[in-house]
Structure formats: structure tokens, C-alpha cells
């Protein structure tokens, strides 16, 4: 079984809020110094889903990422988790690509990478939170997609997915090849092992350009984007933060309940 996992390197979503800065004029987020980029947590869980399949059966897992200089770090990390091969897609022409262009680039790379049975993506990247790329990759390749997976099994030409719905889950079956997007309910991704880190350091990671994967450059980059950011602002989150007091914690709690009642909140 050939499994492809698409990953994205992002600003650390866990970084302290004071480090988060934007350039409102340029409508861009300013990357803070000294905080390394991380793999989007959902993508790490997509890698985990692939490795769980590989734990149970013969499988080759290839990670693909689109990015700049630091993208190799993301690939090294997942190689150390147990992924077999990694590919970086890098080209100035890709800068400013929207979800549609990104999905097009990934689908071109997937086709060049060879045979594929299952393509796994995170349900969204935890920076722009759009949640579109996985589904559009499936549209580009003309194959089925199952979104929001918490469990993925692939055997005998079929993928069986537990898809999260608000009050439980549904079991969805699709013929392979197919795309599956992975949700947080899948559970924690494994950590790289010491042996994995040593192995990953020895692997060569090819970097493919737009030309290498036969991209029509009119379909990628900022010029091809179907929409544009016209404003980027910091929201005002502060609330009045009234501290309700009491002689003891229990008394404060009683006063809180009375306060909520007084304000018709309960």
C-alpha cells in the first residue's frame, strides 16, 4: 500500500499571545523570532494515521510538503516518526498560492511520485484554518474524499473511515485510491524515536520545482489566487473581567451564582 501524507509547516499555534504580531499594512502575520515553525497538528495526526496503517500491514509512507528553506525540517521530523520518504516542493512561483493552487501543486507532485492508494491530509492547517486543500486534491485527481476522520483503515482496495459528526460518528467506505482528511479526534501523534532521528538524518530529501512536477505556472502563486486579503486586524477579546469575591472559595462561588442570576444568565 502506497500512502502519501501532505503536511504543512506553520507558525506555532501554541506560541504565547504576546508574540503574535501582524503587519496590518501588508496584511501579513509577522513570524516571531526565536520560535521555530512546527508541523500543523492535524497534519501530524494524518502522519500518525498513516503510521498506524503501516504498523498493521506492508505500506510505504511518503510525506510531501510545499514550503521554503525550513520545509526540510518538517520532513525530517516525520521521517523520524517513521515515514519512509519525504519530498519538498519549493519554487518562487508557488509564493502566495491559495488553497486551490496549493491543491493543484500537491496533486501534480503526487502524480509524479508514482503509484498511490491513499492520500492523507490534516482536516485544516492550524494557521489559516481554511480546511480546503485535502478535498480539492481529491477533486484535482478525480478520486473520492472522506473528511474529518478519527479512524482510518485501508485494506483490499477499500478505505474504511470513522467520520466525526456532531453527535457521534459515521462509518464511510470508499474505493481506493482516495483522500482522507484527519481530525483531532484521531488522538495524539507519536513522537520521533532516537533511532528514527538517526535514520532521518541519513535520508536525502528531494526538492521539486514547478517545472519538475509539470505545473502550469498560470495556475499557481499570488496571481492565480481566487481571492485576496483586504484587511487583517487584531480582534478585541478583552471582557470586563469582574472578579466576584467571597471570604472563602465556596462563598465566592455562591456569590458568583447570585451574580449570574442577577444578570439573567442562568
Amino acid at each position: 500500500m502506497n500512502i502519501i501524507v501532505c503536511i504543512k509547516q506553520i507558525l506555532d499555534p501554541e506560541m504565547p499571545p504576546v508574540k503574535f504580531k501582524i503587519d496590518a499594512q501588508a496584511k501579513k502575520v509577522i513570524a516571531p523570532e526565536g520560535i521555530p515553525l512546527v508541523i500543523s497538528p492535524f497534519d501530524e495526526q494524518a502522519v500518525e494515521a498513516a503510521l498506524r496503517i503501516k504498523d498493521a500491514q506492508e505500506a510505504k509512507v511518503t510525506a510531501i510538503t510545499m514550503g521554503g528553506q525550513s520545509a526540510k525540517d518538517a520532513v525530517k521530523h516525520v521521517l523520524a516518526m517513521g515515514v519512509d520518504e519525504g519530498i519538498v516542493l519549493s519554487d518562487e512561483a508557488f509564493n502566495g498560492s491559495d488553497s486551490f493552487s496549493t491543491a493543484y501543486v500537491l496533486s501534480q507532485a503526487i502524480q509524479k511520485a508514482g503509484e498511490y492508494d491513499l492520500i492523507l491530509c490534516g482536516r485544516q492547517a492550524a494557521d489559516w484554518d481554511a480546511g480546503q486543500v485535502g478535498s480539492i486534491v481529491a477533486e484535482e485527481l478525480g478520486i473520492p474524499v472522506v473528511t474529518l476522520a478519527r479512524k482510518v483503515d485501508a485494506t483490499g482496495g477499500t478505505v474504511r473511515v470513522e467520520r466525526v459528526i456532531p453527535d457521534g460518528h459515521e462509518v464511510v467506505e470508499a474505493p481506493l485510491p482516495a483522500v482522507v482528511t484527519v481530525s483531532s479526534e484521531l488522538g495524539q501523534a507519536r513522537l520521533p524515536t532516537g533511532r528514527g532521528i538517526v535514520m532521518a538524518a541519513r535520508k536525502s530529501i528531494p526538492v521539486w520545482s514547478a517545472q519538475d512536477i509539470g505545473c502550469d505556472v498560470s495556475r499557481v502563486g499570488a496571481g492565480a489566487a481566487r481571492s485576496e486579503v483586504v484587511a487583517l486586524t487584531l480582534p478585541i477579546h478583552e471582557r470586563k473581567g469582574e472578579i466576584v469575591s467571597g471570604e472563602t472559595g465556596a462563598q465566592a462561588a455562591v456569590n458568583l451564582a447570585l451574580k449570574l442570576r442577577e444578570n439573567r444568565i442562568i
Partner: protein
Amino acid sequence: MSERQGVLVLAEAQEAQVAPVTTELLGLGRRLAHELSSALSALLIGSGVGGISQDVIALGADTVYVADRPELGTFNSDAYTAVATKVCREAAPSVVLMGHTSIGRDIAPRVAARLGASLSTDCVDLRVDQDTGRLLQTRPVHGGNALATIASRVHPQMATMRPRSAAPAEPDPSRNGRIIPVDTSVLDIQARVVETVREEAEGLKLEEARVVVSGGAGIDGAQGFDLIRQLASVLGGAVGATRLPCEQGWVSPSFQIGQTGKIVTPDLYIAVAVSGAPQHMAGCMGSGYIVAINNDPEAHIFKLADFGIVADYREALPALIRKCQELVSS
């Protein structure tokens, strides 16, 4: 691109009624259609849903496209994508709205890809730019640390809207509208739902709860959540958690609220032993009131809450549960 006009809403049915998110989309869609001097239409997909098309008209639609067929009774991504794409091609709206629900977020990117449309997901505000007539789509990004406003360069302009972020439409039973059946002969089904499992024992959907009580890293293991559950139960609410309790297995991962979990917008959100990390707050910022209970007076959460008490939850919650019980039953 100028030939496209009107606003089309994907209507969702829930237990033979118009889903709450659809009522909100129709209210919003009506306003946008007015600003664009155009009509509002809706697409209703399901089995035996014809009965509620009149309700969709009462809620503001001028035209309702109805795709009614037994196979459409439960959500199927391929079939719903095929139907929505077909109707969007025929009706040629300039704006297409869906709820950011398990249906909308699934099919919107697929439909957008097929139509060559733009798509902004999880929007919290939509307006028409008076100068250009373009739809301005505002959505939280970077876990709610920033708000981006996006404008499309292509048509149709598609958006999924976060539930409970627009005022619901008021029904007017005297409204008239057209009902147009949709040809559903080609559904292109490849992936199939073979089983649906309802599993939330507490019986309340986190996303729809009016009260959510959530526990953070400061809760002592799985047992500590008993108090959280009791408070939620007294207030008729649902239980949530930050990431750590889910990762530690104290509660199911389906309870996780935040950027990397669920987004909730209850009237009241009670955060117990929660520090207020941005990735968690991204999931509850839209709540009506936020109440914090934390034993650290310096905790960031107090700046993000309307009311707070500085107390150990083990001491505060039993008293709070008793007092709330007394107040809600009086």
C-alpha cells in the same frame, strides 16, 4: 461574471425541520440579497424534505430548489456535491452560502473546485462592499489571534458561515415563493456511509448547547471531571475540555474545545481551571458570557472573562452546583 446574480443558501434539514444554522443563513442571505438588489434562493437536499420547503420560503427564500430522493436522506458527500454543483451551475448565483457544519465544510471545497469559485470557510461576518459590490468575508485566522477580511476575484463567491454568528430570520408565513424540483438522476456516488453511530451519552451536542462547562489542565485527572459534569447537568449544559485533559485520556477527544478541536458559541461558557491559552480561547470566544474559575489570580483567562472567581475548583464547584441547583429550580 456579471451575468451571475442572487444569493443561494444550502438549506439543511434537521429532524424534519429547518436547521437553526439554515435559519441564520436565510436571515443573512436576505440582507445580502437586498444589498445586492437581487433574489434569495435556497437548495434543500434530503429525503421527504419537500414538506419544509414552504418553511424555507417563509424564512425568506424567493425560490427553493428541492432535491428529494431516498438516497439523499443521509448525508453523502459525493451526492450532495453533485447536486449542489448542478444547481449552482443552473441558478448561477453570485453568492453561495453554506453553514460551517459537517455537511457544509465537507462539500463547499469540492463544489468550489468544480465551479471555479472562491471560498472562505468559517466566516463570522459577511458584508457587501458598497463601492465594488464584492462580498467582504471576515473570518478568524491563526486560532482567532487575527481576523482576516477577504474579497473574491472570481464568481461565484462562496462562504461557509460559523453557526450562531448571524441573527436568525423571522418566519413570515404569508411570503410566496417558487419551488423547483431538481433532477437527481446523476449522483456519482463513490464513497458510502455504511453505518451511523450516535454516541454522545450526555445527549447534548457541544456545538448546540446553550451552556458549556469545560475543564482545563488544572483539573485533577478523570475524577475531577465529575464535578464539571454535575455543574453542566444542573445548568442543562454540555461538558467540554481543553487539549490536555483530552490528550491525557481524562475525557474523550470529542470534548476538546479550541482551534484544534470544536468551536462552541453557547450563551454561557464556564471555564474551570483553564489558563486561557489562545488556541483554546479560539474555540469559545464567541460565547455570550464567559465565566472563569481559577486558583491563580494572574491567570490570563480572567482578562478574557466577564466574571471570575479566584478559587480552587474543588472548593468552589460543590458550592456553585448547590447554589445553581437552588436558583434554577426556584
